Structure formats: C-alpha cells, structure tokens
C-alpha cells in the first residue's frame, strides 16, 4: 500500500496543484492523491482559485461515472476530513513578525533576545503585515513556519494510517518556488529531517536511517516575469530583478543544510514569460497558468509512480531543460525512465488532447443540445441512437435533462471551463506549443473571469477542431467529429444516469477524433 501526498507551498505551490488536478482529471494522476497547501495569504487569487478547483474536482468525481476502461477522474483526491486543507499559518488578521514573536513583550522582559531579533530583522520586517505572504523575505517565513501543527489537519492527513505503511510508502512531494518568500521559506522548514522524513512522534522513522516517508521536492526556479508599476506603494516587495539573486541564495542555503529530501527536481525556464501584473498578494495575485507548473505537476507524478523502495533510498537529483526556445509535446520531461519516455509522451499527449477536445466539444456543442428540448434534437442521429429508445421524461436514467443530471452538467461545465482556461493559458505563453488556443477561443482570456471563457462555435468554425492539438494532423473538421466519432459512439449502460452517458459519449467521441485526426509518423 502506498500513500501519496503533495504539499504546495505559496502561490507557485497552489498553481502546481492546479495543474496536477487538471492532469488527474485527464486520467494521468496516481490512483489517490492527498493535498495540503501552505499559504499565509488566505485571499491570494491563485490559492482561492486552486481551493475552488479542488472542490469542483471532488464534486464532479462524485457525480461522474466512468464508462468501462476510460481513466477520466480516476485519481481520488483526498483532503482532510475537516475540509481544511490549507494551512494559513496565522490565526489572526494583521499579523506581523513582531506580533508572532511577541516582540513588544520581549523588549520589556528579555532585552538580550529582543536585541538579537533586531540584529536578524529590520524594523520594517518586524512590523510589515504578513497576511499577504512574506514579500520575498524567506527569513521571516522560516521563523513562522518552523513549527507547524503536525497533530492538526491538514498536516494530520500525513499521519492518518501511518502505522499500516512500510518503508518509503508514504510518498510526500513538496513543491514551491524558491525565488520568492513563502516557497523559499517553507521548502527547507517543511522539508527538514525531523519534521516529516524522520518524525518520531508520528512514527515516521523506522530506525537505522530508514523511514516510512519517501520525501521528494520540486524546487521551482524562476520561470515567469510580471509587469511592475513604477508607482507601487508597498513597504516590502520583490521584482523579477530580485529572482536570480534570491534563487542563488536559497540554493546555497539548501546545499549547506542537511534537509530530509531523498529526491529533488529542479524546474525552471529562462524565457521568463509574463504571467500578469505585479501584486504583493491577496486577491489581485492571480496569474495565468504556465507550462512550468504543469511540468512540476508531472514531476510529482513521476515521483509517486516510481517503483517501491525497500531500503534506504539513494539521493537523486533530476533536472530537465529545453532543447530549443519553444516547448512541444515531444520535449516534456515525463519520466525518469528513459526506456518509457516515448511511451509516456504519447500517453500524455493522448490524454491531454482527449480531455481538451472533450471539454471543448461539450461546452461548445453538447451543452447547447442539453439546453434544447428532447423532441427538438431528435434529428441529431447520435442523440437519437443513444436517448430516443425508452425515453421517459421523469427518469434520470433516460432523460439527460432530468433530476441529478442537471447538477452533473452544472459541475462539469464549471470544471471544463477551468480546464480550458488552464490549457489555453499555457498556449498563451508563446513558447509552449501544445494546443493552439486561437482555434478554440473567441477573444482573449481574462484572468479576472475564468468562467466567462468564450469558445468558437464548432458548427461555424468547422475546421478549427482538427487544428486545436498542435501536431501533424489530417485536418478533420467538426462534421467528421459528428459523423465518424459522435454517431459511432453508443453507450447503452443501463446502470448509468443519462447525464453520465451523455458526457461519456462526448469523451469517447473525442478519443476517436484525436485518434483518426493524428497523422502516424
């Protein structure tokens, strides 16, 4: 038995988890994934989005039933039973480092310690509000994250059922950026040897250098930039100019410290594409997804999927880099196993492509069918073949517009919009060539309103669907999707609700479409 836990620290950690969830939806994740997020900035836009995305995934997975062998939503995403999967660090609003350390009391009662604090921290660092993060000052974060409440959720999630696990079976993957504040501070503190890897209180350690925990970490190096307003009126903040020096300092520090990590992944991108405007934190810190976050999520899957290790694991370091300015399907670092690399790349491309076409065709076409009355869409052969026989208006198994089916479509629609926003944002970074969002989107993406994503009507832009996935293709159009894929898909599983059949029909059709549209080299 193996337990997988991913811990995302800070804004980047939350965004990597966003990518991981989308990849799980496409069927690429492990069978079970426990999620913990650490971020002091409770209102952070990236965090808020990831939190709602996790809830959407869990809800959709509950309502959605898979047909046969497809692996959609196969990953059981587990959050703490209390529902609290984010550790916000501070209990109260307007926290400062000074308040956290009881600096005022210290000054009165222990002059030596207060003098020591003054040597370590400037007055600004002691008095700046931290509810929007550590503003690129990991030294502050390291203090307040040094002693996380391991016996409370969400950390307790790590230790539930620990006694049933053998050596290295609790696979914990920590991910965060090391060029900012929260991630850089959290990575060495949460990854320190006694906290998780060799935690004695919760029986993680097995003695003799062995542990139940296999600890992996993705150090996300600088990969993005943002526009900075010259009139920013903030007491402490970092700009992209600070990233290289902050990264170097963090790496040197981690190198000196003996951390608990068994395996490290170093992930970054020198292109530094813009992902939005400057923000110290809070709701305004909501950035466009980036392919590096997807690569970091892939790294976590590689970590979880590695073979069982019975002995003390060897230290391993993984690094991947682009061979060219641009990134396409054939360049993604998907596995540590070179022999399986091509196979994994094909699988990855297939799953992500299938889900993209699935989400697009459902939102741009299928949703419109559901919005019409049963009688009005009977001319559509694929619909009649699947839903005409034994149709009953008030039967959830026969009528996709009835009862629980409407809830399913509502949740699915929300999730699919998020997925398409995510995959299109990756394309927005000009150097990633996985999908061509111009063939899918009507207008531009707006980070402020992800749910308002506007899609091209496939019945008007018929040829676009065959060009969405960037690869050599046969240029099939939407008519081919309907005639060769949708019409050829009949799902007659009596145990399924009609809404589930409806969605599965679109997924199976999307799979067929990508298969016949792809030019085999």
């Amino acid at each position, binding site marked *: 038995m193996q337990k997988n836990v991913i811990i995302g620290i800070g804004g980047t950690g939350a965004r990597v988890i966003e990518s991981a969830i989308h990849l799980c939806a496409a069927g690429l994740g492990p069978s079970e994934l426990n999620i913990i997020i650490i971020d002091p900035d409770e209102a952070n836009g990236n965090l808020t989005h990831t939190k709602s995305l996790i809830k959407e995934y869990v809800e959709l997975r509950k309502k959605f039933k898979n047909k046969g062998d497809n692996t959609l939503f196969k990953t059981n995403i587990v959050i703490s039973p209390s529902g609290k999967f984010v550790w916000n660090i501070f209990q109260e609003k307007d926290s400062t480092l000074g308040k956290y350390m009881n600096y005022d009391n210290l000054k009165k009662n222990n002059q030596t310690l207060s003098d020591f604090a003054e040597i370590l921290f400037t007055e600004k660092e002691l008095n700046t509000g931290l509810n929007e993060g550590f503003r690129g000052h990991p030294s502050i974060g390291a203090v307040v994250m040094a002693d996380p409440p391991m016996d409370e959720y969400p950390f307790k999630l790590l230790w539930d059922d620990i006694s049933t696990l053998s050596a290295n079976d609790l696979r914990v993957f920590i991910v965060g950026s090391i060029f900012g504040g929260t991630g850089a501070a959290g990575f060495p503190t949460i990854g320190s040897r006694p906290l998780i890897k060799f935690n004695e209180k919760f029986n993680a350690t097995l003695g003799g250098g062995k542990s139940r925990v296999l600890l992996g970490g993705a150090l996300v190096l600088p990969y993005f930039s943002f526009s900075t307003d010259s009139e920013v009126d903030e007491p402490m903040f970092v700009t992209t100019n600070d990233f290289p020096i902050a990264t170097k300092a963090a790496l040197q520090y981690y190198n000196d410290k003996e951390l608990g990590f068994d395996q490290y992944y170093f992930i970054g991108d020198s292109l530094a594409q813009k992902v939005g405007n400057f923000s110290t934190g809070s709701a305004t810190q909501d950035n466009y997804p980036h392919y590096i976050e997807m690569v970091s999520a892939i790294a976590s899957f590689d970590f979880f999927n590695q073979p069982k290790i019975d002995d003390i694991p060897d230290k391993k370091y993984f690094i991947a880099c682009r061979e060219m300015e641009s990134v396409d399907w054939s360049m993604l670092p998907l596995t540590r196993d070179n022999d399986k690399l091509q196979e994994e790349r094909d699988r990855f491309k297939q799953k992500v492509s299938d889900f993209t076409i699935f989400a697009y065709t459902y939102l741009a076409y299928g949703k419109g069918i559901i919005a019409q009355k049963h009688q009005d869409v009977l001319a559509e052969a694929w619909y009649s073949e699947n839903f005409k026989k034994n149709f009953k208006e008030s039967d959830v198994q026969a009528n996709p517009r009835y009862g629980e089916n409407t809830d399913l479509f509502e949740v699915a629609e929300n999730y699919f919009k998020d997925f398409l926003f995510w995959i299109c944002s990756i394309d927005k970074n000009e150097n990633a060539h996985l999908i061509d969002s111009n063939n899918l989107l009507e207008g531009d993406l707006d980070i402020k309103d992800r749910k308002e994503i506007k899609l091209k009507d496939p019945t008007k832009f018929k040829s676009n669907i065959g060009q969405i996935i960037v690869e050599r293709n046969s240029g099939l159009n939407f008519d*081919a999707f309907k005639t060769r894929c949708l019409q050829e898909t009949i799902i007659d599983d009596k145990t399924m609700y009609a809404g589930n059949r409806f969605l599965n029909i679109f997924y199976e059709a999307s799979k067929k479409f990508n298969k016949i549209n792809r030019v085999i080299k």
Partner: protein
Amino acid sequence: MNKSPLNYLISVAIIAILWVVFAIFMGDYFSQKPNLADKTPESFANDLRIIFGIGAFIAIICICYWFYYGSLESTASEMDRAKRKWNGNFIFLIIVSVCLTVTLIIMNMKQGIQPQWFCMYFGVLSALTFISFWITSFLLSPLTVKYIPLGKR
C-alpha cells in the same frame, strides 16, 4: 442496411419490384378493365408502363440523391437543411405523381375512362413515388439523416 451501396441497391430493387408488379403483372388488369373508346388495351398498357416507369425513375433519383446527401459529412451540421431537403423531395414526388396522373388523364381524355380508374392510377403512382421514397428513406437512410424522415423525428 443503411450503409452504401446496400441502401442504394435495396431501394432501387424495391421500386423496381413495385414497378414490375404494377406495370407488368397488374398491367393487363389496369388496361383491360377500363372502357376504352378507340385505344387498344395493349397500347394503353404501354402508356401506363411508361408513366409508371417515369414516376419510379424520378423516385429512384430522389432517393439516391437523399442517400448521397445524407452520407456527406457536411450534412451532419445542417439538420434543419436536411429536414427541408427531405420535405422538399417528398412534396416534389407528390407533385410528380399528381402531374403524371394529370398527364394520363389528358392523354386519354377521349377514351371515356371512369374517374375511379384515374384514382387507382394515382394510387399506383403514389406508391411508386412519394410512398416509396418515404419507406426507403425511413428504413435505409444513412445514419446522419436516419432520424429525418417523417415518423422518425
């Protein structure tokens, strides 16, 4: 059954068989029973065979066109147009059967044939044209337009 060329062949066969039944096997009945002023029954039977044949031929063209149109991928995105096309073909064949009956009436005005016989010829022409079209398209239309014919929607 709704795959090409099987649907074409079956449809042509059905209409051809109907023509053989009405024009050959029942041809004598249709030409000998009515009172004819100066035309021989053989000559009148010949007229009937030609008129029925024209109706059957037009019906075959319509059904073949419908199958061809229904098998085009582009049809999948134009269900409303497909409905209009089917309705158009169907009404056209009704008009054809009416016109051919009128032609028969005009050709044989001087023969003094009782009106009920022309009703019967109209029935035969209906069977050979729009009814054949409806039956064959109902049973054998390509999947894309399978649910377009009357009674399937």
